[in-house]
């Protein structure tokens, strides 16, 4: 990220949101709202304001497990490393203003709207961790049930416990940990898809990390399938079993808590070892391996860009096998998990594919389209709107004097033509009289 920030010709707008986007390939008009940080460019990220600020709130970066001040830097490696003020928490005491050596605090700062003209768009909106409903498998009900991302923060040297593996209820080191896989995924009642083996590998990684902390901690993984399909993944999985991490093929449906010890009880049946029957097991800590889901608030972007989404809620690629990079909109491509759950290496590969696809496009000064396009005869058009509704490429818009086809978005499929009750649409190179003559000629002998 630092390298990107230092690259010439690359402008990064952080703490910003795309408010509006319209236009077409080569000519997109974008409105970006740069949210007010209430600190100026002079801020050098020294952190003096953070030390003195009296107001606090939950840290988003630490998944709500630690506090941060109202004026804060998002995390230690943030780019740019500048402070910002959360006005919902700020009490306007002015202490930060007093202590700032470079006079970088500006309470009167306002959001800035930036207008840009761009030629193409990469949609790389990422993912969020599935949030289980309150009480599901004890989530948000029992303190010692945490999610994978929360575990990552606990194990992190920059995290809320400075990488000491302790459990939330009493700060003690858990001796028995259970990972529950596929929470919120592969589930007919929630999300039906599999997060492409990301959570499987994350669990194996975190289990191995925990074993490094303390080899005596017992770790069990409740799984449906372990998807270790990737370079070196299977060997990694085998190594984890050699370290003593136990994998139990079972579906955990209920988690109960002992209210005194805050330990968790699970009844499970190891489906690969029938002879053991139903076992009641007790754990000190449970980690929920949750699905990857589209990020919160993504609907705003979907509607703004007029992008299609697939069944799993992620953005729809042009072709799932032959072209997972482009979208149906020319000049707009997908990168990373915006298109679907995937691992880091796959995200990078797709990101580079997106960049090279656009580089090829943008290196020319003209964009060629085929001539096979639909055209509306405005005199016959009755403005019924059926064509606009039916067009999968969003290429038709109704105007006062009739419908109009955008020749760049149109792909010449002809769905509008067959749906038009007024027969007002023609398709170049595939016109009605051509077919009528063909039919007549073939059936002439009859």
């Amino acid at each position, binding site marked *: 990220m630092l390298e990107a920030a230092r690259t010439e010709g690359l402008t990064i707008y952080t703490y910003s949101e795309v408010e509006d986007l319209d236009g077409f390939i080569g000519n997109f008009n974008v409105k970006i709202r740069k949210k007010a940080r209430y600190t100026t460019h002079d801020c050098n990220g020294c952190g003096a304001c953070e030390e003195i600020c009296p107001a606090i709130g939950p840290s988003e970066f630490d998944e709500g497990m630690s506090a941060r001040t109202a004026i804060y830097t998002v995390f230690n490696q943030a780019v740019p490393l500048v402070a910002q003020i959360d006005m919902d928490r700020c009490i306007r005491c002015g202490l930060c203003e007093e202590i700032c050596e470079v006079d970088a605090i500006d309470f009167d700062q306002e959001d800035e709207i930036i207008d840009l003209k761009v030629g193409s768009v990469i949609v790389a909106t990422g993912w969020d961790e599935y949030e289980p409903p309150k009480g599901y498998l004890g989530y948000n009900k029992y303190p010692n049930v945490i999610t994978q991302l929360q575990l990552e923060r606990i194990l992190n040297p920059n995290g809320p416990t400075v990488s000491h593996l302790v459990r939330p209820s009493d700060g003690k080191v858990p001796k028995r940990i259970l990972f529950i896989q596929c929470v919120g995924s592969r589930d007919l009642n929630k999300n039906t898809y599999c997060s492409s083996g990301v959570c499987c590998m994350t669990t194996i990684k975190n289990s191995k990390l925990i074993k490094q902390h303390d080899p005596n901690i017992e770790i069990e993984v409740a799984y449906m399938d372990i998807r270790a399909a990737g370079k070196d993944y299977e060997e990694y999985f085998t190594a984890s079993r050699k370290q003593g991490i136990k994998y139990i093929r079972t579906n955990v449906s209920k988690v109960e808590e002992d209210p005194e010890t805050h330990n968790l009880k699970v009844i499970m049946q190891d489906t690969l070892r029938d002879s053991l029957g139903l076992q009641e097991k007790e754990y000190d800590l449970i980690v929920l391996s949750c699905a990857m889901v589209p990020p919160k608030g993504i609907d705003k972007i979907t509607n703004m860009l007029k992008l299609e989404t697939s069944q799993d809620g992620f953005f729809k690629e042009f072709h799932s096998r032959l072209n997972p990079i482009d979208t149906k909109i020319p000049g707009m491509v997908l990168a990373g998990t915006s298109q679907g759950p995937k691992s880091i290496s796959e995200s990078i590969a797709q990101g580079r594919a997106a960049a090279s696809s656009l580089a090829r496009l943008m290196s020319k000064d003209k964009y060629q389209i085929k001539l096979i396009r639909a055209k509306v005869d405005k005199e016959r058009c009755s403005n019924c709107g059926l064509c606009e509704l039916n067009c999968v490429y969003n290429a038709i818009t109704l105007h006062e004097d009739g419908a109009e086809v955008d020749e760049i978005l149109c792909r010449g499929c002809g769905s509008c033509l*067959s749906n038009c009750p007024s*027969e007002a649409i023609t398709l170049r190179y*595939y016109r009605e009289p051509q077919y009528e003559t063909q*039919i007549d000629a073939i*059936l002439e002998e*009859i």
Partner: protein
Amino acid sequence: MAGTMRAQYPASIRPIRMNCTGRVTPSLMMRALGKGADGIILAG
């Protein structure tokens, strides 16, 4: 495509090439049936 599979079909089946099945209109189908076609296969 039948040719590449070395499959055979009777000469009474006459293909008309289109760019997309979405382009087939009811009026075209009625015209074919009206002019004496026994049936229509929409393959795509």
